[in-house]
């Protein structure tokens, strides 16, 4: 199974023919070339890449990598580590319990992409390749060399599982084949405390990576970050590390969830800049609403295109009773009462919309909910005292929503604690995190119960569900109302966090989240029916537009392209749920250590595991949660 050759010679494996890499190189040469390339790249990051500090990140210093150089350095280091691990170096073997070649190909590709992107960005920004210093040339050459070497490494899985992949096969076929990796070896049993420590370590790494991403100061660095993590994450999956971690988190479920929220709560401690905490708080609002939508779409299978209206109902209700001078209702409710009112208003709105529309199925439901979503927005616009009763100030909205004050704790002020200063955003971040915890537990608890099973049954086959005694309409209405309530809950915090609301924030589609289209995209992109999926999806969909403002008008275009690609290559979303995970393992064993069982089955060429993204990447649920 795992091709960990203790010697650098060509694989002398009995049985199936040796499986060549994409480029026709002997295994030993390929390994040497990869090593040389990675070392060269690594060394080059200590040299200046350009002569002027006009390019952000200061890439002009010798001996001190900065900005994009750090990313290249990380990539090259990872390549070397995985190379050593695949080579069987003692103490590093744990890095690659699954595949060895596939992660290397991906990692070298990530390093290559980041380095070449950096060189390209320098040339474009400063006007010509003449601005590149030798360091940049060495780095680009080195990363290319490493990629070429990795492509020459023999594939992890034996040839012949999915049609021709031998020497005669087309290069693309061989590339696809070398990206396949076997399932990881069963892990050595560790004492509980060690496993929990490992989980904590994994969460710390994820938190660090996430924090780095959110705190990138300029667009170029964020693109580099995306390129590198975009390749490194699947590399870790191919190496089997993600599967191992998710197995650990599955075993210590409560510990993992606690760790995820501790990691999330620690986020403001790592930030000195208010701006990023504010982004994080907005991500949480967006993610919580997406999770509420996941009840409706992911569990009950109801396509709701007007979901953002429920967020709006909650926000408007909270704004009206917030004591804002522009509110037409002169009341000021305490926060808990405002939350209850907002959630209740959303619930009522949800039932009112759901009762007539849920008699429809599929596409028809989608169209009708889209209509209701727009009706909400236009309705809020018209309740301005001219077209209708004066309630919402029309398109002006309700500004100057005062900050919350709970038990004397004012959310608008900066508080000092443990020597850290926590700004207004950090306060709202923690409040929102509290609501996220509530929504996550509502989601999880309702999912694994009689009612959750009824939802999934309705989604799978409504007729059969009814024949099993499920009152389909009633349960769909419950799902719809629950989703609406959760969105309303988030809306009440949103109103205070953004301090000014107007109808334009609750459109069907817009370049900035939250809007109905982005919410749905977050759920589908992240993975329907999971907890981690919408959280990750929402984080990405919020961060990318926020970070890449320089792509401006092309944002929606790129977003669309990315969505198409993702649906083509990973239709189950970034985080596959347990069912999808089983779907991709035709053997269907849940708890059995499946390394032994899977190996022969893979050989039988079952359809799904033969795909390019293979069976190895589902199950990133664990570490993903930390990003919420």
């Amino acid at each position, binding site marked *: 199974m795992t091709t960990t050759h203790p010697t650098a010679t060509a694989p002398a494996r009995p049985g199936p023919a040796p499986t060549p890499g994409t480029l026709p190189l002997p295994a030993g040469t390929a390994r040497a070339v990869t090593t040389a390339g990675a070392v060269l790249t690594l060394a080059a990051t200590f040299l200046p890449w350009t002569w002027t500090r006009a390019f952000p990140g200061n890439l002009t210093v010798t001996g001190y990598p900065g900005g994009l150089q750090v990313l290249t350095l990380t990539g090259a280091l990872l390549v070397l580590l995985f190379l050593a691990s695949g080579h069987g170096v003692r103490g590093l073997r744990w890095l690659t319990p699954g595949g060895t070649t596939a992660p290397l190909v991906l990692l070298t590709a990530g390093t290559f992409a980041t380095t070449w992107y950096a060189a390209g960005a320098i040339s474009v920004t400063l006007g010509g390749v003449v601005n590149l210093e030798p360091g940049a040339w060495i780095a680009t050459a080195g990363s290319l060399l490493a990629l070429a070497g990795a492509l020459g490494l023999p594939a992890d899985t034996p040839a012949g599982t999915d049609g021709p992949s031998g020497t005669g096969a087309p290069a693309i076929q061989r590339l696809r084949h070398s990206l396949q990796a076997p399932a990881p070896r069963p892990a050595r049993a560790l004492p509980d405390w060690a496993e929990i420590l490992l989980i904590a370590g994994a969460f710390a790494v994820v938190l660090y990576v996430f924090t780095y991403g959110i705190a990138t100061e300029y667009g170029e660095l964020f693109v580099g970050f995306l390129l590198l993590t975009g390749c490194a994450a699947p590399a870790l999956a191919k190496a089997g590390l993600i599967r191992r971690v998710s197995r650990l988190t599955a075993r210590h479920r409560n510990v993992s969830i606690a760790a995820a929220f501790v990691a999330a709560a620690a986020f403001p401690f790592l930030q000195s800049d208010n701006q990023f905490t504010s982004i994080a708080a907005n991500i949480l609002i967006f993610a919580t609403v997406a999770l509420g939508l996941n009840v409706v779409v992911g569990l009950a299978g109801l396509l709701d295109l007007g979901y953002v209206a429920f967020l709006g109902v909650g926000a408007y209700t909270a704004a009206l009773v917030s004591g804002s001078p522009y509110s037409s209702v002169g009341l000021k409710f305490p926060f808990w009462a405002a939350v209850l009112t907002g959630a209740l208003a959303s619930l009522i709105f949800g039932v009112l919309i759901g009762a007539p529309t849920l008699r429809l199925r599929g596409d028809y439901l989608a169209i009708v909910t889209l209509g209701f979503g727009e009706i909400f927005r236009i309705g809020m616009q018209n309740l301005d005292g001219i077209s209708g009763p004066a309630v919402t100030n029309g398109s002006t909205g309700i500004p100057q929503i005062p900050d919350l004050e709970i038990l004397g704790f004012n959310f608008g002020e900066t508080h000092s604690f443990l020597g850290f200063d926590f700004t207004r955003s950090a306060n709202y971040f923690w409040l929102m995190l509290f609501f996220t915890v509530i929504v996550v537990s509502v989601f999880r608890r309702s999912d694994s119960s009689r009612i959750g099973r009824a939802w999934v049954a309705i989604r799978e086959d409504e007729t059969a569900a*009814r*024949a099993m005694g499920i009152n389909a309409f009633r349960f769909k209405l419950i799902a719809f109302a629950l989703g609406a309530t959760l969105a309303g809950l988030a809306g009440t915090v949103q109103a205070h966090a953004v301090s000014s609301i107007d109808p334009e924030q609750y459109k069907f589609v817009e370049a900035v989240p939250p809007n109905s289209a982005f919410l749905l995209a977050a759920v589908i992109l992240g993975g329907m029916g999971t907890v981690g999926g919408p959280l990750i999806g929402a984080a990405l969909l919020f961060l990318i537009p926020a970070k890449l403002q320089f792509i401006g008008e092309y944002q929606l275009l790129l977003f669309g392209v990315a969505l198409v690609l993702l649906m083509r290559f990973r239709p189950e979303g970034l985080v596959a749920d347990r069912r999808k995970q089983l779907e991709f393992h035709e053997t269907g064993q849940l708890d059995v250590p499946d390394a032994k069982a899977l190996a022969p089955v893979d050989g039988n060429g079952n359809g799904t595991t033969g795909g390019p993204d293979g069976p190895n990447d589902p199950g990133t649920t664990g570490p993903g949660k930390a990003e919420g």
Partner: protein
Amino acid sequence: MTTHTTTPAATGTGEGGTVLEATGVTMRFGGLTAVKSVDLTVNSGEIVGLIGPNGAGKTTFFNCLTGLYVPTEGRVAYRGTVLPSRSHLVTQAGIARTFQNIRLFPNMTVLENVLVGRHTRTREGLLAALLRGPRFKKAEAESEARAMELLEFTGLAGKRDHLARNLPYGEQRKLEIARALASDPGLLLLDEPTAGMNPQETLATQELVFAVRDQGIAVLVIEHDMRFIFNLCDRVAVLVQGEKLLEGTPEVVQRDERVIAAYLGTPPEEVAAASRPGGAEDGPGAADGAPATTAERPTGTPDPGARNDTGGHGPAGTEGGEKA
């Protein structure tokens, strides 16, 4: 059968009584009569077969019984109570069914499929699920225990965590039966439970149906496999062109010329002699009813005395051949 209030009827209930009583069930789709005035009774502890050529209206009749369709006329009573016309209430009342083309929840595990079947026998709503009180945990544990019991019963316990879609065909059929049994029914309706099975699997299904019957559950089964039906059933009703041709013990039905004609068609010379009996009036879902279309011709000819030995329910074998 338009109201779904539980009006107790006068018929006998309890042990040994009538489980299902359908009287004059008629189903029209526009101008097309798929099921015409069918009477059928299933008694406690009985296995009743329902046979007939493709497009005879068997599945439509099933759908009328289970509330998927609201019959145009007629009345269906379960243990003396008129059934509501909503399928989830029918299941609640105690009739469970399987489907002709398997309708499991493909992306749920085997255990979850059976747990969904427990739905009508558990009460826990959203609030209970969110609060997770001791009663909720108890109910979940009981449901799971019952589901595991049923999986043991059908021999699927070892596959509890597999996705339903990944089961082999025969096991999917078994799982459908287990899921139906999970609602603790008094009557089980099986729609072609052995379709596409090999002889061994058919035999196993037969044993399973007997075992179900031995638990005190009456069974009504649609099937095309005659050996299966005649081995299994206490009574067989024959449905042709939406009407009940006759009803009787397997021996009687087996020998009846009209049944043979309905399945195999009449000898060619007879068909040629007759006026063409046009095949356009099959019920919905009549996919390939080729032999069936010629079936009505000879129905008048054989002596009517050969039928009705189990009590003669209504106009069982009357002139079945008139055109709609």
